């Protein structure tokens, strides 16, 4: 370790001169980061725990004793879990196709990236139009769907969120699947494994990281989503972020809003810890 770090410093000295220089180079970003991220976010969360200048959990007590807030938290978790399930399956599917079955990986990735980089408000606007009555979607689905009233429902929010989170899942999964050695799967097939067996016992466990990282990312993005529930869910289907936003207009409620933001982070992190433990238990033991 010491010889390695010594070599590192030596190398750096030869490039920028002097072993303190890397700290100097980092300084501008550290200052900007502290001033624009650590201080504001620290200040906000301290507000959650301070009531009239003293440390108190009153804000959290209010959240967990008010039916409205509990409903919002439960709804947020429900919508995010459903979104994560749908996005993980369909995202994995497309990523698998891109890595192992397509002839133009680069073009397909570019297409996915384009959908990710277009303004979210525009994409949501597209869904609002699609869900409105008389839309092309209603015409297309009229033989199968009798009552077409998706707009301002949880279904609409989930559809918007799946479209928003899919590219993230696809990129994570493509990254992981690209590193799997093809010859392993071929060897398994040569030894008599069916395609399904090779996938379930080899490829899927080897891509456990895609499920953990991709799934966590998708879940976290859904939990903190704001635009989709705001424009597709209407007033009756608010999620946590929308509730925080609606509290901000009144500065007397800032403590509650800050506490709700903190609750959002902690809830997301706790669920992810459980999710990661379950995935590891299911796929980890099956590793070849």
């Amino acid at each position: 370790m010491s010889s390695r770090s010594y070599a590192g410093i030596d190398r750096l000295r030869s490039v920028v001169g002097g072993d303190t220089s890397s700290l100097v180079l980092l300084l501008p970003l550290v200052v900007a980061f502290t001033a624009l991220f650590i201080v504001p976010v620290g200040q906000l969360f301290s507000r959650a725990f301070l009531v009239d200048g003293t440390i108190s959990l009153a804000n959290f007590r209010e959240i967990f004793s008010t039916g409205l807030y509990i409903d919002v938290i439960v709804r947020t978790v429900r919508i995010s879990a459903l979104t994560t399930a749908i996005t993980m399956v369909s995202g994995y599917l497309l990523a698998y196709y891109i890595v192992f079955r397509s002839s133009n990986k680069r073009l397909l990735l570019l297409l996915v990236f384009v959908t990710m980089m277009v303004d979210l408000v525009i994409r949501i606007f597209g869904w609002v139009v699609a869900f409105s009555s008389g839309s092309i979607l209603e015409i297309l689905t009229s033989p199968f769907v009798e009552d077409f009233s998706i707009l301002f429902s949880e279904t609409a929010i989930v559809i918007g969120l799946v479209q928003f989170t899919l590219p993230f899942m696809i990129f994570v999964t493509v990254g992981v699947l690209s590193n799997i050695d093809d010859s392993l799967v071929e060897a398994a097939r040569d030894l008599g494994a069916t395609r399904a067996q090779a996938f379930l016992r080899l490829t899927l466990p080897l891509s456990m990281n895609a499920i953990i990282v991709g799934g966590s990312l998708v879940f976290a993005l859904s939990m903190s989503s704001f635009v989709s529930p705001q424009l597709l869910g209407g007033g009756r289907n608010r999620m946590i972020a929308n509730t925080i936003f609606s509290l901000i207009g009144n500065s007397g409620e800032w403590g509650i809003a800050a506490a709700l933001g903190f609750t959002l982070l902690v809830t997301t992190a706790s669920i992810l810890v459980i999710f990661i433990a379950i995935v590891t238990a299911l796929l980890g033991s099956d590793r070849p």
Partner: protein
Amino acid sequence: MSGRIERLAWRLAAGGVLLFLFFPLLLVIVISFNPDGFVFPPSGVSLEWYASMLNDSALINAFLLSVGLGIGTAVITLPLVILASVGLRNEGLPGQQYLENVFLFPLMVPEVVLGFALLIYFSSLGLTGSTVGIVFGHIMFTTPFALQTILAAMKGIDTDIEDAAHDLGAGSLQTLAYVTLPMIKPAIIAGAGYVFILSFTNVTMTLFLVGSGTVTIPVEIYQYISFSIDPTVAAVGAVLIIVSTSVVVYMDRVFSVQEISGF
């Protein structure tokens, strides 16, 4: 025979997911040319909504502001991130791994929380609703993304080349400017494009930072949609789809998309 069916099934499934991803974009483009607005099927092709967009000075001003903010954010974020990456690739630096991860923290904090935190913070500094405040927010928001792209490229550099430049008498700054930076030029261009788009399209955090005279284009559209559904938004949407697509295609020409996304 079964191989053929399997191939077809795969194509249908993959095509279905891709179609779902593109569906809202295609719909927006079709409506922007539809003289009847949201009514299907269209009775013809018209540029009516584009004309109405060009006559809306609020939309035009918001668009120009967003382009300026995107460029300004890239111009400030990139140098900060490039300098920091030169420092961060040095594995001998104490706590290097921790620092690298600390800079990714903003990715984990919900945008609503980031925006709310900056709103309170800026109100004590008198920056509420100012362009400076928005740029500050965007610098913080885009830093983790740019750092992932540029640090990865920086770590891939063959340091022997830099050592050689140094041995041949180049000073530290000369080596950085003439040897190191040219080697990671593709990553810098891609990183700049990435920062520009992230700033140009950000809505949730920016919603907390804008003032009456500093409304960005995504926020303007957001407020527009919240108020009424109008095909003019489809015309703006089609223009924004073209802006984002061109930047992405340009980025892809110098750098693969998979590397930009940082996964």
